[in-house]
Every structure is written in C-alpha cells, then in structure tokens.
C-alpha cells in the first residue's frame, strides 16, 4: 500500500518570492508521483508527474518537482510566485503494480500569495 504526507497544510508566501511545497511518500513498490492543483471552486488539474527518467520534472505555470528516492520525497518548487498561483496543491502517488489504477492523494497544501 502507498501513502502520502504533505507536511504543511498552509503556506503563505509573498508575491515574487520562491516557494517549496513538501511531499513525502511511503511505498513498498516503485511508484509514479504527481502534483495536482485545485483553483477555487474548480476541479483538480495535473501540474506535473514523475513516471520514470530524469528525477527533475518540469510542469505547467513554471512549477517543477524533484523525485528523491532515498528520501522518498517529491517536493514542488517555483522560483517566483504570482497571485494567480493561489490554490490548493495535492501530491499523489500510484504504485506501478496497481492494475486498478488507484491514486492516493495527500491532504493538500493551501498556497496563499500575499501582495
């Protein structure tokens, strides 16, 4: 079984400052990792994903994440945030072996941008 821990429930950041949203996972098998974003009153949309290959993954809107197998982490970063980045961010994990295609979501981190 897999699990995901998002260490921060809320992260307040000033506009144009860098941000890191932390995510750690637990799994006994190899995994796929994801970050999804949920803007207010909307559904989730994929920000980026790690399936294989390079451990540094670039996504939409200037976000990137690094898969660190030894630390079982997949932290999300952006060098300079905008007001429009205000949203809820979800880290998620799926086991390679999961034929039922079940994704486990973390509890979410609310990113609030201050002008």
């Amino acid at each position, binding site marked *: 079984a897999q699990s995901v821990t998002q260490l921060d429930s809320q992260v307040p950041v000033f506009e144009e400052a860098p941000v890191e949203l932390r995510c750690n996972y637990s799994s006994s098998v190899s995994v796929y990792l994801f970050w*999804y974003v949920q803007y207010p009153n*909307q559904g989730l949309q994929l920000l980026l*994903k790690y399936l294989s290959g390079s451990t540094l993954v670039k996504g939409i809107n200037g976000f990137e994440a690094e898969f660190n197998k030894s630390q079982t982490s997949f932290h999300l970063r952006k060098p300079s945030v905008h007001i429009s980045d205000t949203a809820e961010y979800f880290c998620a994990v*799926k086991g390679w072996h999961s034929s039922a295609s079940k994704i486990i979501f973390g509890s979410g981190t609310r990113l609030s941008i201050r002008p």
Partner: protein
Amino acid sequence: DTAVSQTPKYLVTQMGNDKSIKCEQNLGHDTMYWYKQDSKKFLKIMFSYNNKELIINETVPNRFSPKSPDKAHLNLHINSLELGDSAVYFCASRSPAQETQYFGPGTRLLVL
C-alpha cells in the same frame, strides 16, 4: 469542449431524499472515477469503473450506487441522504498512456 462534465453543479436537498449526479467524458478513456472531497479538502476515492466494469469499490455506504451505462458515462445515485454526505463530489477519467486523471468541475452537495 468540456472534457469531463458533471451535472448538476450545485445540489441542495433535504435529509432522506434520493439524488443522482451525472458524469460524462468525451476523451475516449476507458476508466472513470468518483471522488468525495470533504470540507477540509481531503480527497477520497469512492469508485472506479473500467469499460463499464466496477474495479474499485472503497468502503462506501451501500446508499451510494454507481452506474455506468457506457464507458463515457458514470453516474452516482445516493439513497436516503444524510447530513454527512454534504461534500463536493468529483468525477474523473484516466488516460492510461499518460497516467493522468482528468477531473470534472465538481458537484457541490448540501444536505439540510
């Protein structure tokens, strides 16, 4: 062109009533899901169908019954609604090639 659509967007109803939420995807995906998001934004999978066949059935009260008339549709029927059913319900479909789930806009259910 909306990829995953849900109706209704809002649903306000009394305890004890029966209601349905509809979901349609035009992406050609075989796999669809229902998720429940509570007031703390916690997202929990409820059901998954692959090509009209139930493949994931989490610990959900049997008052909840999914139905998939074809692989483009996955509806959710809820009997005898309770206060605790108030939440946002999301439908999603999955692209196996991309390992990506595409979410609908959500249905906000409020049980009074």
